[in-house]
C-alpha cells in the first residue's frame, strides 16, 4: 500500500510539472510508450479560466494532493458541463413538434466529443487517466449517467438515420423530405379555410407524394421525420377527414352473402339427393346354453 502510494505521489508530481510546462501548447509529454492523445476539435482552455470556473470546488476542504483531480481532467469536465447544458437547452424547445435531431445534432456531436475525451483511456499530460478519476471514482458516476441519458435519447430517436456522419449536417434524404413536407403543409394552410373537400382534392397529389416518399424511405427513420409524417397524417385523416370512404358496401355484402349461400345449397342438396350411408349390422356368435342362464340367475338372486 505504502509503496504504491509513494509511487503515485511521484508520478503525479512529475505529471503536474509537465502539464504546467506544456499545457498551453496543447500537447502532452511523449514520454516512453505514452501516446499523444489526439483530441480533435477540443480547444484548449487557458488554465486561468479553469481556476475561475471551479471556484465552488476550491471552497471545499481539499484532499491530500495525491487524491486531487488534475487540472487537465477538471478542464475536460468543464468542457463537458458546458456542452451538456448547451445541448439540453437546445433539446427542450425542440420537444414539440419533435425536431431533436435536425436542430440539435451539432450539440450532440460536440457533447459526444467531450465525453470521448474524458472516457478515452489515453493518459493525460501528467500520465493519468481522466476516465478513472472522473468516471469511476464513486458510486454515483454522474458523468457517465448524464451522458448515457443523452445517448439513450439520441438512440431512441434514431437520429443517426437523418444526420450525416460526424455530425456535419442533415442528410439529403431528410432535407428532401422536409422540403416536401413544407410544400404539403403550405398547401394545407392555403385551403384550410372553408370546405375541406376542396383541400382534400387540391392537396391530394402533394400529400400522396409525401406519403410515397415516406414509405420509400428506409425502414427506420429518425423521430423528426416520423413525427412530422404522423402529424401530417393525422391532419389529413382526422382533421380534414380526407380518408377513403367506405364506398361499396353493397357489392361486398352481395358477394359474401352469395358465398354464404353456397354451403346451404350444398348441404341441402347432399341431404336430399345423396343416399344415406347405411351400416349392415353383423351378429356376433354368442354362447347359447341354459346352464349359463341358470348360473346368472343364481348369481344375481
Amino acid at each position, binding site marked *: 500500500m505504502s509503496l504504491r502510494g509513494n509511487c503515485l505521489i511521484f508520478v503525479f508530481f512529475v505529471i503536474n510539472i509537465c502539464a504546467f510546462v506544456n499545457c498551453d501548447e496543447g500537447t502532452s509529454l511523449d514520454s516512453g510508450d505514452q501516446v499523444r492523445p489526439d483530441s480533435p476539435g477540443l480547444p484548449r482552455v487557458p488554465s486561468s479560466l479553469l481556476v475561475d470556473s471551479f471556484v465552488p470546488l476550491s471552497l471545499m476542504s481539499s484532499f491530500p494532493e495525491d487524491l486531487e483531480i488534475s487540472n487537465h481532467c477538471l478542464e475536460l469536465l468543464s468542457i463537458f458541463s458546458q456542452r451538456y447544458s448547451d445541448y439540453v437547452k437546445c433539446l427542450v424547445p425542440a420537444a414539440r413538434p419533435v425536431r431533436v435531431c435536425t436542430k440539435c445534432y451539432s450539440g450532440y456531436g460536440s457533447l459526444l466529443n467531450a465525453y470521448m475525451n474524458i472516457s478515452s483511456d489515453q493518459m493525460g499530460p501528467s500520465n493519468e487517466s481522466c476516465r478513472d478519476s472522473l468516471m469511476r471514482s464513486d458510486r454515483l458516476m454522474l458523468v457517465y449517467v448524464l451522458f448515457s441519458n443523452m445517448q439513450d435519447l439520441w438512440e431512441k430517436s434514431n437520429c443517426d438515420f437523418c444526420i450525416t456522419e460526424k455530425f456535419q449536417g442533415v442528410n439529403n434524404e431528410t432535407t428532401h423530405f422536409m422540403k416536401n413536407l413544407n410544400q404539403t403543409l403550405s398547401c394545407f394552410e392555403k385551403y384550410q379555410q372553408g370546405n375541406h373537400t376542396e383541400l382534400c382534392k387540391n392537396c391530394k397529389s402533394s400529400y400522396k407524394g409525401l*406519403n410515397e416518399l415516406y414509405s420509400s424511405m428506409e425502414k*427506420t427513420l429518425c423521430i423528426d421525420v416520423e413525427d412530422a*409524417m*404522423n402529424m401530417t*397524417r*393525422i391532419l*389529413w*385523416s*382526422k382533421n380534414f377527414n380526407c*380518408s*377513403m*370512404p*367506405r*364506398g*361499396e*358496401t353493397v*357489392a*361486398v*355484402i*352481395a*358477394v*359474401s352473402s352469395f*358465398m*354464404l349461400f*353456397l*354451403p346451404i345449397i*350444398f*348441404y341441402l342438396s*347432399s*341431404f336430399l339427393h*345423396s343416399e*344415406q*350411408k*347405411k*351400416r*349392415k*349390422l*353383423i*351378429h*356376433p*356368435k*354368442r*354362447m*347359447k*346354453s*341354459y346352464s*349359463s*342362464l341358470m*348360473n*346368472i*340367475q343364481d*348369481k*344375481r338372486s
Partner: protein
Amino acid sequence: MSNITKKVSWSSRGDELGPVGEGTPLLNGSEQPRHSRQFSEGGSLFQIDRLSTVDLEEEISAEEESARGQPKEIPHNSKLLSLKYESLDYDNSENQLFLEEERRMSFTGFRCLEISRWLICGLIGVLTGLIACFIDIVVEKVARYKYEAIKQNIERFTEVGGLSISLILWAVLNFSFVMVGSILVAFFEPVAAGSGIPQIKCYLNGVKIPRVVRLKTLVIKVCGVICSVIGGLAVGKEGPMIHSGAVVAAGVSQGRSTTLKKDLMIFEYFRRDTEKRDFVSAGAAAGVSAAFGAPVGGVLFSLEEGASFWNQMLTWRIFFASMISTFTLNFFLSISHNNTGDLSNPGLINFGRFESENLNYNLYEIPLFIAMGAIGGVLGALFNFLNYWLTIFRIRYVHRPCLQVMEAMLVAAVTASVSFTMIYFSNDCQPLDSEHAEEYPLQLFCADGEYNSMATTFFNTPEKSVRSLFHNQPGTYNPLTLGLFTITYFFLACWTYGLAVSAGVFIPSLLIGAAWGRLCGIWLASLASAGSIWADPGKYALIGAAAQLGGIVRMTLSLTVILVEATGNVTYGLPIMLVLLTAKIVGDYFQEGLYDIHIKLQSVPFLHWEAPATSHWLTTREVMSSPVTCLNRIEKVGTIVDVLSNTSTNHNGFPVVVQVSENDEPSKLCGLILRSQLIVLLKHKVFVELAGSRLTRRKLQLKDFRDAYPRFPPIQSIHVSQDERECLMDLTEFMNPTPYTVTQETSLPRVFKLFRALGLRHLVVIDDANRVVGLVTRKDLARYHLGKHGLEELHLAQT
C-alpha cells in the same frame, strides 16, 4: 342360449330398476340382431335353442320377424363397432421358432439391438424435426406470397373502388389451395384427414387402423397440412405433426418401405407389432415435441395415450427422441431465419415469452382462472356437440370423395368471405407500432398510419394471430372486435374440423380461447381502478386459450406440460393445471372430448382404461364369442384354406386343439395360431408330406414371418392345388403354445384388465377340462359402455 341369458339378465335388471329397464333402447337394439343371425346361420345344433328363444320372447313384433331374412341396415351412429378394425398383435408369440432364434442370439446381439433402438429413436427425432421444419418454412413462404398479393390488391382497390374483387381474389386463392389439399386427402388417402391424433390414439391402444402408418399417408398428410394452412382455413399444423412423427417412427424402425419396395435389410428384428408400437409412441412424442417445443409434454402425451405398455427404459428413449426432434427443428429454423445457432424456435408454435413484470399472477386471481376454466369447459362442450352432429351428417350424407372436396372448398371460400366482411366492416383502427410490427397490416378505411385491428386476427396465419393476442399491448384490440372474432372463429373452426383435409384443432382452439380470454382481461382491467395493471390482457388470453383447448380435447397432464413448456414459464403451471382441470370436469359433464367423439364415430373398438363401472356381474360366458373355429394340431390343408377363405367370419386367431376322443365335443386346447402365420405357412407350403420328400428345403425361420410383415397377402392370392389340399400341416412348431386363457366365470372387468394390460388380441376361454368354449377379442370387450341408461351394448357393423 346367450340371448335368453341376456334377456333374462336384462329383464331382471329392469325389474330392479322399475319401469325403465324394459324400455331401454339397448334391449331392443341388442335383441333384434340376434334373431336375424340365428335365422341365417342357425345350424341344427341350435335349433332347439332358437325355438325356446322365440317362446320366451313374446314381445317380438311381426315386423322384426320379417326382417330376419336379411341383415339389418341402420344409419351410421356413434353406437357401432366396425369390423374393419383389427387388433395389433402386441402379445409375443413364443413358438419354437422364436425360442430357437433367441437361443442363437448372442449377448452382443442383444447389445446391438439395444443400441439400434437408441439409433432409431435418434433418427425418428431428426426426421420428425426436419418434417416440421419443412412444413413451417413452406407455409411461411407461400403464405407470405398469398397475403402480400391480397394486401396489394386490397390497397389498390381501396382507392379506386372494387373491393369485392379483392374479396373474390382472396376466396379463390383459399379455394384453390384447399382444393389441392382436399383432393389429395379425399381421393388418395382418406386416413390422412383431420389431425391424426384419434388415429394414433387408437394405434397406441392396439387397434390396427388400415394404412395409418404408411409412407403415402405421411406424404399426403404433409402436403395436405401445407395446403390447408395456406388455404386460410381455421386450422393448425400442430396436430398433424403427431401423426407425421408416428409414421416416421413406424417407417424408420422397419428399415424398409413397402410402398417404395425398398428393403435396407436393417432393423429386421423390429418387424413386429410389439416393437413397432414402442417406436410409434416415440414418434408421437417427437411430433408433439416438434409441434409445441415441448419435449416433456411429448413424452407425457405418449404416456397419456398409450401408457399401458410402458417401462422406464422406453420412457428414457422416448424422451431422447423428443429432445432430438425439438433440437433439430430449432437448429434448422435458425438456419432458415439466417441466424444459425440461435436456438430460440423450439416448436412450430411459439407462444413468445411470458416474462414481463405484470404477467405475474396473484393469489386472488386463481378463482378468476378457475371460472375461466369453467367457461372453457362449457364452450368446449358446445364445440364438441356441434361438431358431433356435423360429423354424423358428414358420415351419412357427405361420404363421396367429390362431395368432400366440394365441401372443403366451400368452407375455404366462406372462411375468406366471412373474414373479409369482418375486416371490411370493422371500425377498430390502431396506430402502427414499430415494436410489435404487424406482418401484413391492412389500412383499408383507417386513417393513414393506422391499421385495421380486425385484420391482425383474420388476415394472418393462425399461429401469428395467437401470438399477437398473447403479446400485443393492452389496448391493441377493442372488445367488440374480439367478441365478433371469437364468435365467428368458433363456428368456423367447428365447421372446419372433420373436413377431408389434414389439419389440427389445437391452434383454432387456442385462438378462440385467446380471443375470449383477452376479452375477459380487458373487462377485468376496466373493473379495476385506473392505473392498476394486474389484469394484463395477455395473461388472460393465455388462460383463456388453455381453458378452451382443455374444454375441447380434454387432455390433462400432457396438455398442462405442453402449455407450460410452450410459454416457457413454469410459474404458470398451477393456473394452467387448475384451468384444464376445471375445463375437463365441466366439459365431461356435457359431452366427451373431441378426439373420443371422433374415435366413437369411426366405430373403432377402443378399450378405455377400465371396464364400465357396473359390469362386474357380466361373466366371460356372456362376453365371449362362441362357438370357436378351432384347428387341429395336425390339420388338413384344405380345411385351413377353407377356414381362412370364409369371408363371413374372417377370424384372425385360431385355437389349436388336440382331439382326445372321437366325440363331437370340443377338444383340449394346446395353442393359438394367427391367420398371418397360417398364410405364411401356406405360402411356403410347409406341409408334412413335402417336408419328407424335400429334405434339402430350408427350414422356415422367424425371419420369413417378419418379411411378410406388415402386409400379409390375402388368402385369395395363395394358390393351393387340389392335391395339396389333401396334405397335412403340422402347426406345433409355429403356434403359440401358451396362449392366455380364462375360465368362463371370470368377470368382465377382470378379463378387461388382462386384455388391456397385456395388449392381447385373443383370449381363449376354457372350461375345467381345458376345452375351448369361446374366444374373447377386442370387439367383445369394447362393445360395453356406460350410457345414460346404465350399461349399453354397441352393435357390430360392416363399414
